[in-house]
């Protein structure tokens, strides 16, 4: 019994010693031999365990980054929401700059600070005051047209009455001077929206829907020619001696953020043609953009053609038929069977967008193209 136990202990010690020696050998292996052994184990019977560990690590990373990812997503969502408003604001500022360049002088660009509550769009605070040259009854305009009038002035800010205010009035007319009237807010309660009434139009003068209405310049507050709105329809009132028209305003008071205050000394110089010129400037900018687009298209086409010509030259130098469509020599192309099908590598810039540009566009190419006269063909 004791001998058996002693024998078992000896076996245990021999196995222990063997394992320890093997482990020491593994520990003493050079790196060049250690790595293949470890890699072999990882890739064979340990592969499922390694996969489990990888997934667990990934799960932990996901848990740790969940908050950061959520915050990132929120930021992106917020930015995408802001992007639309920024585009609109950008557009408005561009128009404002265009109007400023037409006015040249005598205006004060300012910010309009809105409202104290819902549907309280009758007054705004302007961020410029008497120190900047603002005075009482100075007109407030936007690129689209009339906004309101300054009614209180402080040194650093001022208070303006918008056209939606019940007390606001402006003398208005059709641009051709055939119809005159007084424009004021159309007050029909909360559901009426922002519309303008043109009251007191002589019965003999009729205005068609879509007709533009501008300030007439009478009264000394508003200069002549500032857009007020466009005619929607005639409305029936108790006044039998004059017509009343409903106008769609040129400026929505809820969208007024950047405006201009006209100085009193500027009013005397007149504003004839300013808004028409502003519109022309806008059209000119559009034309410049379109011309730039055409120039970029032409440059892309020229670059693609040059690249194709180079490829053809290389192909000819190698004894192969030209790969591209160009043939500078004008000689008939000899079509020979190719020993090895050569796949032409796509040029870096000759992908789908460039090809799309090769299609003539009506708004760019046609305007620059002079149509051929019949005698040219003769």
């Amino acid at each position, binding site marked *: 019994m004791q001998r058996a136990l002693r024998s078992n202990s000896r076996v*245990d010690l021999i196995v222990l010693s063997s*394992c320890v020696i093997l482990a020491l*050998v*593994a520990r003493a292996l050079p790196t060049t031999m*250690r790595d293949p052994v*470890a890699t072999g*184990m990882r890739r064979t019977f340990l592969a499922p*365990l390694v996969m489990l560990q990888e997934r667990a690590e990934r799960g*932990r990373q996901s848990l740790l980054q969940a908050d950061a990812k959520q915050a990132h997503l929120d930021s992106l969502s917020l930015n995408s929401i802001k992007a639309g408003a920024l585009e609109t604001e950008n557009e408005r500022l561009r128009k404002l700059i265009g109007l400023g360049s037409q006015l040249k002088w005598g205006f004060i660009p300012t910010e309009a600070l809105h409202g104290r509550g819902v549907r309280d769009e009758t007054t705004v605070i302007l961020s410029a005051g008497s120190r900047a040259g603002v005075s009482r009854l100075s007109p407030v305009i936007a690129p689209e047209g009339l906004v309101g009038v300054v009614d209180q002035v402080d040194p650093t800010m001022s208070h303006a009455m918008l056209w939606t205010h019940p007390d606001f009035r402006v003398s208005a007319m059709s641009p051709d001077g055939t119809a005159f009237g007084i424009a004021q807010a159309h007050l029909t309660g909360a559901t009426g929206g922002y519309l303008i009434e043109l009251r007191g139009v002589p019965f003999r003068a009729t205005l068609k829907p879509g007709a533009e209405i501008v300030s007439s310049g009478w009264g000394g507050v508003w200069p002549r020619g500032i857009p007020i709105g466009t005619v929607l329809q005639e409305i029936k009132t108790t006044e039998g001696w004059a017509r009343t028209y409903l106008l769609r305003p040129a400026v929505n008071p809820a969208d007024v953020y950047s405006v201009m205050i006209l100085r009193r000394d500027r009013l005397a110089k007149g504003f004839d043609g300013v808004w028409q010129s502003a519109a022309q400037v806008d059209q000119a900018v559009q034309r410049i953009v379109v011309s730039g687009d055409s120039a970029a298209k032409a440059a892309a086409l020229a670059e693609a053609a040059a690249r194709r010509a180079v490829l053809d030259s290389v192909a000819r130098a190698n004894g192969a038929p030209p790969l591209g469509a160009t043939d500078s020599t004008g000689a008939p192309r000899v079509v020979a069977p190719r020993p090895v099908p050569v796949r032409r590598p796509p040029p870096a810039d000759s992908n789908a967008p460039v090809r799309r540009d090769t299609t003539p566009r009506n708004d760019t190419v046609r305007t620059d193209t002079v149509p051929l006269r019949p005698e040219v063909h003769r």
Partner: protein
Amino acid sequence: MNVGGAIRAIISFLIFVVLHYTLRPLLGWRAPMDFLILALLLASVRVRPATAAVLGFVLGLISDSLAPDALGAGAIAMTVVGFGASYLKAVFFADNLVLNAFFFFLGKWVFDILYFVGEQRVHGVELLQQLLLWSPLSAAVTAAVGVLLLFLMRPLLEPTPA
């Protein structure tokens, strides 16, 4: 140990190994629990010292294969721990949770001492900090988790009544 008991012990052993490669990296603690040590200790008290030594050697190689620079260090440590646990099972083989917790704590700490000394990656103060602070913490966590799992897996680990 009869066949049923052996199968249940093997299942428990595999559960511990899987937990080592799933729960441990998922928690990612600075002083992690060591399910491989728990598996080795629970298996070692059920087999002969020679078998425990071989089991420890294999488990050590498995853990070392994921850290090739330390290949062999884990194998040495686990071989010694497995053999020692099996050799001393007469002392620790008791149905006492506190004693089992101490058994797990001691096994993990001895393993860490052997491993970090054999690995020779950390030296000086850092080694002392590891062996006297983080390793006991890790051993304590391992002991706590081991006792909890012993409690939960009692149906699997209890010997079959004759």
